[in-house]
């Protein structure tokens, strides 16, 4: 056996071709879009029902209504109790996940292929005919209030909540799914039933079904059980486009603190309202983010973690939504270095816009890293189902997956430089620290971001 040449790294060879999943479509007579993908790996099937209208659709005086309603989906349906439904899920070995995003509610059910029909029928029952009974509403209300109370202890949750409030104020993106204690207490059973009748309708909704079966079998699994779903003529209005309203672009404050006495670290967020998912610059932003803070070898992580040892990790992300979503840098740093860490983070954001623009090497690395590993995202039925669900939510083409890699490869260094300058604006950024206010107050003033605005853990 020949010895290895350790003087040089092996150059990766060409990658084997990969066939992206073929998406089969149907539209049921009630308007429900069905997308089916055969995914032959293990005997697993995953169904994702996407109903447009997420936390942004909460009425202004009822933040948390969408998530409260979605939480009741598996608390009893079709006249059967929550325990009966839970028992069925367990007997199908099924996992149910309820995800309430800013723009949509997604119900994901994963089960073994032999249970495809009964499990998807149960998903339909939960979505279409939840009991929404008073005792269940009261029980879930109490659980949600306790959850909200517990989140006050959790610095990352406190930071997320405060940041959205600072960036979006009263805009529909300005609150998280859990809403507020006041609103959860004030929400009535009628509010919940009305939201359900308005939001959970086949028109505009999509069900994606992916798994170890032929497309015909996958279609058959959903057609009957969802075919009888009707949009009520008197369906209450749920604003599915609430997020599209223009948010405030300039923050009232540049610097904010949520005091957390004795905290071992400061939880930091730096961000601003940024862009929507349909921006033509999407692919350039993906690459910009990889370079700035989207992976281990990004600029901010190499600086704050690998060079300075300030943190266990730091990342940036463009949370692109149907409306203008936020850009944010997130990290948690040792209390003593709060101000220097913020200064370095802001400097990295500023520098990539001009003083130290992305280099050709960085771009080629980011591009390779995004494209070479792309097939990894299609390994499980659940990954494929969620991916196809995103296409549905954002109105992207069935060929999106095939087109992704060539589009990423077409992005030039000039474009990355242009989007860095256009989409990142330090002058508009809010810097937030959840930490030991007494210890960090004096150094924060050296940042020249003005007096810190002090918020409570509730973001007020």
């Amino acid at each position, binding site marked *: *056996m020949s010895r*290895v040449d*350790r003087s040089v*790294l*092996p*150059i*990766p*060879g060409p*990658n*084997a*071709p*990969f066939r992206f999943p073929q998406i089969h479509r149907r539209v049921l007579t009630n308007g429900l879009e069905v997308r089916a993908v055969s995914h032959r*790996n*293990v*005997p*697993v099937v995953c169904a994702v029902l996407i109903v447009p209208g997420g936390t942004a659709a909460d009425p202004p005086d009822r933040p948390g209504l969408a998530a409260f309603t979605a939480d009741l989906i598996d608390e009893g349906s079709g006249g059967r109790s*929550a*325990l009966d439904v*839970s*028992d069925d899920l*367990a*007997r199908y*070995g099924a996992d149910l996940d309820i995800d309430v995003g800013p723009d949509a509610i997604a119900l994901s059910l994963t089960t073994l292929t032999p249970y495809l029909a009964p499990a998807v029928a149960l998903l339909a029952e939960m979505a279409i005919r939840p009991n929404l009974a008073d005792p269940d509403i009261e*029980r879930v209300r*109490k*659980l949600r209030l*306790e959850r909200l*109370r*517990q989140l006050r*202890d*959790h610095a990352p949750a406190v930071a997320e909540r405060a940041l959205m409030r600072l960036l979006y104020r009263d805009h529909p993106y300005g609150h998280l799914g859990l809403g507020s204690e006041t609103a959860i207490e004030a929400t009535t059973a009628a509010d919940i039933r009305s939201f359900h009748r308005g939001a959970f309708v086949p028109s505009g909704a999509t069900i994606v079904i992916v798994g170890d079966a032929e497309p015909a079998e996958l279609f058959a699994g959903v057609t009957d059980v969802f075919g009888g779903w009707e949009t009520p003529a008197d369906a209450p209005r749920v604003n599915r486009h609430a997020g599209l309203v223009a948010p405030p672009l300039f923050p009232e404050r540049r610097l904010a603190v949520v005091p957390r006495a*004795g*905290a*071992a*670290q400061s*939880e930091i967020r730096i961000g601003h309202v940024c862009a929507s998912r349909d921006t033509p610059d999407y692919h350039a932003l993906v690459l910009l983010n990889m370079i700035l803070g989207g*992976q*281990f*070898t990004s600029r901010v992580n190499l600086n704050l973690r*690998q*060079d300075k*040892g*300030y*943190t*266990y990790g730091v990342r940036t992300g463009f949370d692109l939504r149907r409306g203008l979503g936020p850009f944010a840098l997130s990290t*948690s740093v*040792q209390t003593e270095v709060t101000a220097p860490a913020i200064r370095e983070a802001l400097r990295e954001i500023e520098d990539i816009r001009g003083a130290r623009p992305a280099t050709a090497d960085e771009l*080629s*690395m980011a591009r*390779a*890293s*995004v*494209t*070479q*590993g792309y*097939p*990894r995202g*299609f*390994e*499980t039925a659940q990954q494929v189902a969620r991916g196809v669900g995103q296409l549905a939510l954002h109105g992207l083409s069935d060929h999106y997956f095939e087109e992704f890699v060539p589009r990423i490869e077409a992005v030039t260094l000039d474009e990355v430089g242009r989007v860095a300058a256009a989409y990142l604006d330090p002058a508009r950024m809010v810097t937030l620290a959840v930490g030991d206010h007494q210890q960090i107050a004096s150094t924060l003033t050296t940042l020249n971001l003005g007096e810190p605005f002090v918020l409570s853990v509730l973001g007020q």
Partner: protein
Amino acid sequence: MEIPYIKRTLDNGLDVIVHQHRQLPMVAVNVWYHVGSKNERPGRTGFAHLFEHLMFEGSEHYDKGYFQPLQQAGGLLNGSTNTDRTNYWEVVPTGALDLALWMESDRMGYLLPALTKEKFENQRDVVLNERRQNYENRPYGLAGIAMAAALFAPDHPYHWLTIGSADDIRSMALDEVRDFFSTYYHPANASLTLAGDVEPERAFDLAEQYFGDIPTGVVAPPVVVSPAPPVDSRLVLEDRVELARLYLSWHSPAMFEAGDADLDLASDLIAHGKTSRLYRTLVYEKRIAADVVAYQHSRELSGVFQIASTAVPGVSLAALETVITETLAELAAQGPTAAELERSRAQTASQFVYRLQTIGGFGGKSDQLNAYNVFRGDPGFFAADRARYDNATSASIATAVRTWLTGRPRVALSVVPTGQQALALPGSSAVRAS
């Protein structure tokens, strides 16, 4: 259901396991070293994990950090340390398999020449920040530290968590790394699995080519301890939390020992899903708890069975304890019902199938093959592992609950909001953890 594989051992003692699966044009590389925090000693806690960090800082022939070339090739990679083992993995496009093996073998054979004081001190700071983020600044984050200390005697290596104590981490020095590396990081103490888009013969050739000339080492004797049963105790820890939480922990069977699978099933029966006995009583019916979890955490030297439940405002932890004690007594007396057993069989069946969905990463097929190889000497243990669950009966579950839980010594830890010790179980003595 199984994970087909071929296993060979190189002359230097490295186990190589290959599982071919062509769904994606990707290969998972997974390396286990049979070392964890159980191999540490008091005063040096946290070393195995700090060492894991150093494995990403470059090696003799590529000293520019471990991530860059692999991320550039489209790879995903990570590593982790627990009490019993340390694992490292990459999932790479097929064309980058050589690169991944070059990198893994270079750090297995040639880590030390590239290690500097600067890297060591930087990663020590990073680890201290990891500890702050995941333990010190997290609600209930110190409970696990206090519980481990109470469950196991100070000279038992499960007395401390893998993250280690902050003081120990601060006092570590670069020269300690050399000994640790030569004792534990060599082919005979490691297991390499390749899973995915690779022909077995080519995989074995590559393994020989990249790892074959790494000098073998002597496998350290296994850590032997006799876990004295815990002293029945009640402790209270104040923390920055809104709601009080009760943790009850017992010693339980070690990994794969008799009763391990039965207690794993028992934990699901009492706390997984709305129909589980404790969720139903505490959260659904009586509404005195915000949540309840239970698990059988089995490891090489001993297992721990733990139940944790958070009280709703105004409810004392004693009220939760009463229900938990009654529920365990019922399960010990009668065992699960036929319906409960049927449900848990279905869940077991699906969980084992779900485990076959990914080739790499934490818990993927390559990780499982290495786990079975390192802990059982048999990568093909998947089917036998599942049989342990299928063979469990109502009587065997009841027996395990009687043998290990009801009436056995246990540690009851009350975590209460600062200044509210009255919420703790009566008679609890205050502990501190940091």
